[in-house]
């Protein structure tokens, strides 16, 4: 057992013992930052990985699992020798505070001071757009796996960004597939939209209304409501939605706001009057609101572990995750997608036979990689991984301490069904970069 192995075991042990997961994970991140070059027989230079995710702000609760999970996954990879079996990964974590200017500053700090080779992040799409400017200029690899505005891979395209998360258009497209079916069945004609007033909310909303108009032209949006990130009292929004008496509502709400909204709307009985199909209900929401989520509600997920239980990578990940954090702890969507990003990095380096950024960028172009979600290919024109979206009904499962999506009603909407726009159009959208 090498010295670094022991260190890693200690980190993992700490994590296992901890009740306050976050504290220790950040301590772990600190250890990682401070760890000197790993000593190993034929070690190459360590590979520095910057992780830019919020532990403050509206996305913090979504990212908590990622932030504590990534060190465990990296430790496991390092045990196998690291990238190409010789480059130990050194993770450096920074808080973006869900603020674009802070994100941009921390990206600069990671690149110029810590000399990172790649950056994973961010949670907020607005922050992602801001840091893309920095990573493009400094030619640093950037894997996005949560922030999913379509602008990241289209308008603001840079060859250094790879997207592991279905983008907002794909997600909205998936919701539209479900909603159009339900609208037809129930004779729905009108809906109200409620969205977070920021990049992702606007973009998701645009994607939804655009695609819905194409498949169900007679379903009309009667009202749009936008709220600022971090809203604490949705009462007035909920009564306004009820007052509009729509047939259903569409929501572009994520993070802690989603939790607040679902709780307050549930208590006010909104969903008894107005169905809310296709709101983001990720695994962490299923876990956190295990008691209160209305069963039968139609939710949208990005990467739920229970949809891919037969994938070996997913199985291995779940096993390791439960070993590290307790048997009740299943990885959430965000952690899975960042795990895929890490896998993408490992496979990219292997394909390239090198850890140089340019080589990995080239190797991943249009490449097919193994992920938690099976074999997936990057779209040529936008570096968007062809991953599906998941629409399903909240349902009590006998196998888990929290509800999941009912397996026989869950629809996995493949990327190809909802690809918009076409590659030719994407190329037109791409802004010119000097």
């Amino acid at each position, binding site marked *: 057992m090498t010295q670094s192995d022991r260190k890693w075991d200690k980190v993992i042990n700490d994590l296992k013992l901890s009740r306050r997961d976050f504290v220790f994970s*950040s301590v772990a*991140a*600190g250890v990682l*930052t*401070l760890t000197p070059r790993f000593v190993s027989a034929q070690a190459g230079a360590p590979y520095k990985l910057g992780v830019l995710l919020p*532990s*403050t702000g509206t996305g913090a609760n979504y990212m908590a699992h990622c932030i504590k999970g990534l060190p465990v996954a990296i430790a496991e990879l390092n045990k196998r020798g690291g990238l190409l079996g010789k480059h130990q990964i050194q993770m450096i*974590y*920074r*808080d973006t505070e869900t*603020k*674009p*200017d802070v994100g*941009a*500053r*921390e990206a*600069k*700090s990671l690149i*110029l*001071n*810590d000399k990172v080779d790649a950056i994973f992040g961010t949670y907020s*799409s*607005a922050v992602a*757009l*801001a840091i*893309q*400017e*920095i990573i493009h*200029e400094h030619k640093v690899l950037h894997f996005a796996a949560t922030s999913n505005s379509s*602008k990241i891979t289209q308008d*603001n395209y840079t060859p250094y960004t790879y997207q592991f998360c279905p983008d907002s258009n794909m997600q909205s497209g998936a919701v539209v597939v479900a909603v159009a079916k339900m609208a037809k069945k129930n004779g729905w004609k009108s809906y109200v939209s409620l969205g977070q*007033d*920021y*990049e992702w909310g*606007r973009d998701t909303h645009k994607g939804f209304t655009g695609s819905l108009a194409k498949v169900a032209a007679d379903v009309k949006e009667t009202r749009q409501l*936008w709220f*600022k*990130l971090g809203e604490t009292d949705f009462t007035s929004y909920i009564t306004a939605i009820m007052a509009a008496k729509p047939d259903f509502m569409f929501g572009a709400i994520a993070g802690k706001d989603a939790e607040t909204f679902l709780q307050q709307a549930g208590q006010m009985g909104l969903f008894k009057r107005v169905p809310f199909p296709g709101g983001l209900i990720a695994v962490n929401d299923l876990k956190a609101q295990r008691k209160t989520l209305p069963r039968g509600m139609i939710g949208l997920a990005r990467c739920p572990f229970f949809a891919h239980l037969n994938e070996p990578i997913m199985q291995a990940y779940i096993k390791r995750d439960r070993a590290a954090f307790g048997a009740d702890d299943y990885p959430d969507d965000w952690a899975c997608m960042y795990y895929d990003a890490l896998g993408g990095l490992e496979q990219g380096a292997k394909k390239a036979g090198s850890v140089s950024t340019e080589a990995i960028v080239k190797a991943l172009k249009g490449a097919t990689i193994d992920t938690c979600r099976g074999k997936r290919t990057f779209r040529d024109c936008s570096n968007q991984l062809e991953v599906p979206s998941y629409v399903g009904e909240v349902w009590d499962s006998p196998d888990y301490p929290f509800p999941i999506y009912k397996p026989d009603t869950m629809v996995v909407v493949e990327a190809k069904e909802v690809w918009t726009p076409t590659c030719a159009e994407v190329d037109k959208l791409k*802004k*010119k*970069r*000097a």
Partner: protein
Amino acid sequence: MKSAAPQRAANAPGRRFAVVLLALFLLVPLLPGEFWTVVGTEILILGLLAMSFNLLYGYMGQISFGHAAFFGLGAYATAMLFTALKSPDGSIGVPEFLLSLLVGPPVAAVGALIVGFFCVRLTGIYFAMLSLAFGELLFYIVFSWYSFTKGDDGIQGLLPPHYFQDPGNYYYLTLAIVVVALLVMWRITESPFGYIMRTLRDNQRRAAFLGINVRLHMLANFVIAGAFAGLAGALWGPFSRSVSPGLLGWQESGIAVFMTLIGGAGVFIGPIVGSVIYTMLQAVVKMYTVYWPLTIGTIILLIVLFVPGGVLGLVEKQIKARQGRLSDGGGARAGSDEE
């Protein structure tokens, strides 16, 4: 007891200190790696913002919690013109770039003129609250006016011309602009107008009976401070390569207040020294821990409790105490201040 102690005319130690500080700033890009150059640029830009805030606080005696609104207005004005002037291939020429920088201060000044028109009617806590309210209002306008400002997305792609993409070159450009701005500010604070500001800080009623139109003078100073904040904002966008509405928010204003109080509001270069301390601490502390708020919070707590008047205020006191011992002078201690 006072954070805003009298601003003495440039005495020899002060001038020497400023020269040493400038020399240090000139040497920053020679440090290995580009990181400290980038941190240095941030110190200068945020320092300029804090300096402009101190025109209101240290010299006029009013605390503005909406000062970052003008920083943000300047940043957005520059960002929008910058975007409009970009050539189809996404690059921008040097003249166009400089032109876009120039638009920041006047736009911010116009904003300050409108906001200031109302704010100067009030003083103290009411001034603070009204400036906060206007700052938040401007923030929400930028935040909500999606079609014009791109809302929360902000504006990206503010990559300066090739020459200024080099952090060292952008640093020297910023240094040159900030030094000129500081010299202008110095002239203003040492002008009759600057001293009239101090009279308004100390005693507005008395100043009015000298024939000073209090509101008009406060408004003039508010606009000047807004313009300098706008200049800082103009430099921020191309430095950060993007702007976002958060730049206008009260938390950004809070940073200017922190810097000023850390460095010392009673000394001309106090705010920029505060910026050096704050920004460097931030850069270093964040390397080791995510508990930056805890760290800076504790530091501010200690400064408020034990170093009132800021770091430079403390230094000045020490110098004065030494001089006092030498000359064995010192005026008679007298009763409390009125007003």
